[in-house]
């Protein structure tokens, strides 16, 4: 019947060739199997959404719990500081698995890295995910910046009609979000009770199985070798611009000498100064964070002085030109140590255990020392050319 109708559809009474009935299968393929109800002109489905869940208040995107190659590539780039401030997903309500009115609501931030961390842990869970607009910043930082806040949470609970999505009146907020959330205020404004979940997404399933109780290990922040080392590319990336300016200044300073300015001096001595800068940067922004608990001292600037000194001594052993004269050697040593100390101190802002009061005290103590070593180093460097 279907075939007959098709042949009759030919124009001007000309019967189509029987072989043309198979045209779709053989020549032009089957056509794309699109998730048609979700297709809208001008819209494209995000790669982390697989379908839409029908609810009383409209369709809710269901997210995948497996990361694909695009997620992994963009994660690697963000870890290197590329596209870091524009790595966002649309805030609002999402679902995972097959959620219903009894499913839990997990609150998170709209930084895609955070979102990916969460969803890949939820393969066996049916839940709702409420994503707050934190301008692409992770939960803890957004909580202290004030974007992951009671008001933002309340607004999203109301906007998503959460009371029509679930029967219970509770949301699970990651523990580190507590810096920005006041449970009492959220309850008052939205009617929803805030339950503080574990710090790490990896503990969520265990937390829920444990009747929404976190044990002490779920409540404690860690700072393992891997957790530290993964932060170091961004530590380097954020100082790239000032480092470039420093390098230009180094080449100019290195050209100063008996004949007022010499290009060969700028090039030869500048190269050594530049290598020293690079070694100081790696020492302060990579080695110190990586070996943090093993380096003596509590103050980061002091730790940076220690690693910087060792790095400078190794460099002196490997590059004979770095110790061409006592003043050259001392200038480069002090320079390496200063850069390393300053960048190590900079790392206090990245760690999960330093207090603003402690960092302020350390900076007041060490910035004058770092300035002194920098001035001494510069003076010795110019002097050593004569």
């Amino acid at each position, binding site marked *: 019947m279907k075939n007959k109708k098709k042949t009759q559809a030919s124009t001007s009474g000309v019967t189509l060739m029987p072989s043309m009935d198979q045209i779709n299968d053989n020549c032009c393929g089957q056509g794309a199997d699109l998730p048609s109800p979700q297709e809208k002109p001008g819209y494209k489905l995000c790669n982390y959404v697989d379908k839409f869940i029908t609810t009383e208040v409209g369709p809710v995107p269901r997210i995948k719990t497996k990361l694909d190659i695009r997620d992994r590539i963009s994660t690697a780039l963000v870890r290197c500081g590329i596209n870091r401030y524009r790595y966002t997903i649309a805030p609002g309500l999402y679902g995972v698995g097959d959620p219903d009115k009894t499913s839990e609501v997990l609150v998170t931030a709209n930084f895609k890295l955070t979102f990916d961390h969460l969803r890949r842990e939820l393969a066996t869970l049916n839940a709702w995910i409420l994503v707050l607009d934190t301008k692409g910043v992770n939960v803890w930082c957004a909580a202290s910046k004030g974007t992951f806040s009671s008001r933002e949470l309340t607004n999203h609970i109301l906007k998503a009609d959460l009371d029509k999505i679930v029967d219970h009146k509770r949301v699970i907020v990651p*523990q580190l979000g*507590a810096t920005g*959330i006041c449970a*009492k205020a959220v309850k008052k404004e939205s009617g929803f009770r805030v339950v*503080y979940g574990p710090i790490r997404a990896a503990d969520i399933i265990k937390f829920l199985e444990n009747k929404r109780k976190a044990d002490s290990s779920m409540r404690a922040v860690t700072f393992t070798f891997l957790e530290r080392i993964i932060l170091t590319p961004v530590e380097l990336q954020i100082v790239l611009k000032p480092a470039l300016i420093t390098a230009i200044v180094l080449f100019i300073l290195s050209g100063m000498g008996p004949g007022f300015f010499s290009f060969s001096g700028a090039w030869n001595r500048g190269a050594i100064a530049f290598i020293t800068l690079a070694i100081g940067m790696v020492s302060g922004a990579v080695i110190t964070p990586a070996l943090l608990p093993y380096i003596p001292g509590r103050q980061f600037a002091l730790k940076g002085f220690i690693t910087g000194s060792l790095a400078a001594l190794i460099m002196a052993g490997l590059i004979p030109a770095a110790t061409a004269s006592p003043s050259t050697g001392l200038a480069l040593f002090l320079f390496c140590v200063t850069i390393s100390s300053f960048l190590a101190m900079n790392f206090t802002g990245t760690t*999960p255990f330093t207090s*603003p009061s402690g960092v302020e*005290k350390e900076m007041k103590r060490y910035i004058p020392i770092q300035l002194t070593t920098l001035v001494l180093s510069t003076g010795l460097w110019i002097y050593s050319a004569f």
Partner: protein
Amino acid sequence: MKEFRHLEDVATLVLDETKCIGCSLCTEVCPHQVLEMHQKKAKIIDFNACMECGACVNNCPSSALTVNPGVG
């Protein structure tokens, strides 16, 4: 986290035990286990681990906790 320690005696965390109503929310939200419940009252047991994140202060229903870091 006991192996990571920054400067001692710098944190500005203050607990007014007379105001504490014993809800224990502060012990839940603190990422460094600075507080613990003792006879239905919160108690600071590891002052030097405090990083002044403000999670306890924000969630204390009776304003028994304060933290006041400078401009940092």
